[in-house]
């Protein structure tokens, strides 16, 4: 696509979100959608991150604060449960960590290069909040 010449694309600089017809897109989950190569879903902004959020499901209460406040549609929730993080689209803003209400938090920021198992292994203990 990126090397297409002037005669190799549709007129009008328009873009299609999907290949072929879609029905009920509002109730079709991402994994079931026929995304076109022009949908930014197929692109990645992973390299924007300096730090990445890591999800620890041991502490998660599925409150969905991270889901609703994620600006980058990068919190994957299915059937009312937090499933994980979409690292192709997460820009590392850390809002999910900030809004996580558990103690300890179920989401924490780690260096981008850190191994996930390593991050989980070193997860902090419950913090004693001052009364």
């Amino acid at each position: 696509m990126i090397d297409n010449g002037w005669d190799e694309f549709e007129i009008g600089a328009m873009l299609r979100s999907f290949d072929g017809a879609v029905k009920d897109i509002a109730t079709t989950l991402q994994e079931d959608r026929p995304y076109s190569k022009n949908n930014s879903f197929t692109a990645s902004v992973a390299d924007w991150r300096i730090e990445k959020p890591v999800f620890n499901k041991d502490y998660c209460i599925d409150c969905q604060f991270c889901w609703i406040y994620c600006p980058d549609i990068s919190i994957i929730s299915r059937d009312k449960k937090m499933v994980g993080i979409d690292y192709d689209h997460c820009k590392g803003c850390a809002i999910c960590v900030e809004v996580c209400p558990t103690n300890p938090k179920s989401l924490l920021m780690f260096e981008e290069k850190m191994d996930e198992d390593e991050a989980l292994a070193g997860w902090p203990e419950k913090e004693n909040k001052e009364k």
Partner: protein
Amino acid sequence: MAEKMELRDIEVWDGNMAASQAMRQVQIDVVAAYPITPSTPIVENYGSFLANGYVDGEFVMVESEHAAMSGCIGASAAGGRVATATSSQGFALMVETLYQASGMRLPVILNVVNRALAAPLNVNGDHSDMYLGRDSGWIQFDAYNPQNAYDLNFIAFRVAEDHEVRLPAMVHQDGFLTSHTAQGVHTLDDDTAYSFVGDFKPMNDMLDLDHPVTHGVQTEEDWHFEHKARQHHDLMTKVFPRIQAAFDAFEKLTGRKYNIVETYNTDDADAVVVCMGTAVETAVEVSNELREEGKKVGVIGIRVIRPWPYDQLLDALKGIKAIGALDRSSPNGTFGMLYNELAGTVVNGDEKKVLTNYVYGLGGRDLLKSQLREIYAELLANAEAGKPTTPLQQLIGVRGPKISFH
């Protein structure tokens, strides 16, 4: 369902009524419009058709010409037949959106009733607004009388909506001189008129809810040039064959023949004027009179301004020795548009031609037959001498000392 209107074979219509009747007959889905002299009656007539059940689309009376074209773009992208009308300052206010309509390849039809641009303020006809639109990527048709204004609307819809073309088109007519001059117009009945243009065929329509589409993207140095190149390529190669086909079909239907470049008395002519709008017809009358006196003069009328009819003009100008380019717009620091474009057209040809420029008729100033006779006399002298015998650019019909350049 809109009601049909019974028309006589010949109706006495001014150019505005002719344009609005054509708009009615092609059953536009959305008209978003704003009134401005002298195109206002087009909008008023349309409002009256709506009020009396002759159209059943949406008529959106917006708050400015910019909004008019913005609404037309949104409506066209949504997927249906769209048109509006404007003039002068309103056209100038629209200019931003003209580029957007053509860049998005939306087949909006704009009736431009030509009028001067302020300052000083003037409501009468010249071609300043038409010239302002000439780089906007639209197809531009030019009408010389109300009949043309009627006919060219059908042509414009048929060409613009063609999926091979998908470019917006303007139909120009002279403010007042055409728009407010009533003449006999041969009409088409409603069904015939509609079927000449046919049903609107949507393309990339936003309202196709199963096929979401993004219109009006951002491109930077990585993509912008390719998209503009594509648009230019299509204007240069795809439009004329479709216009010619539409002209041919229209002639077959009505007997009225249009040409991309109109020629009158040019066959063995030594000198021609090249002009647009009502001036073409007045010049034809003068050339007819001069022919009776044995003077070999003719007229070339530009019917399609954009894309520029280079090949057709080269052909029409074969054997012509002297050309007068008649521009009805203040060139403001250079030659008139027609002079410059004609110079670019003939400069590489084998024949030596003398090209001079006349600026006339600004702000609706009358173009007199006597002035055209003088112009022809000068052009014939140029033809005879094989070089200019006058200054290259002259302003005619202006009070005060003679004004000319180069």
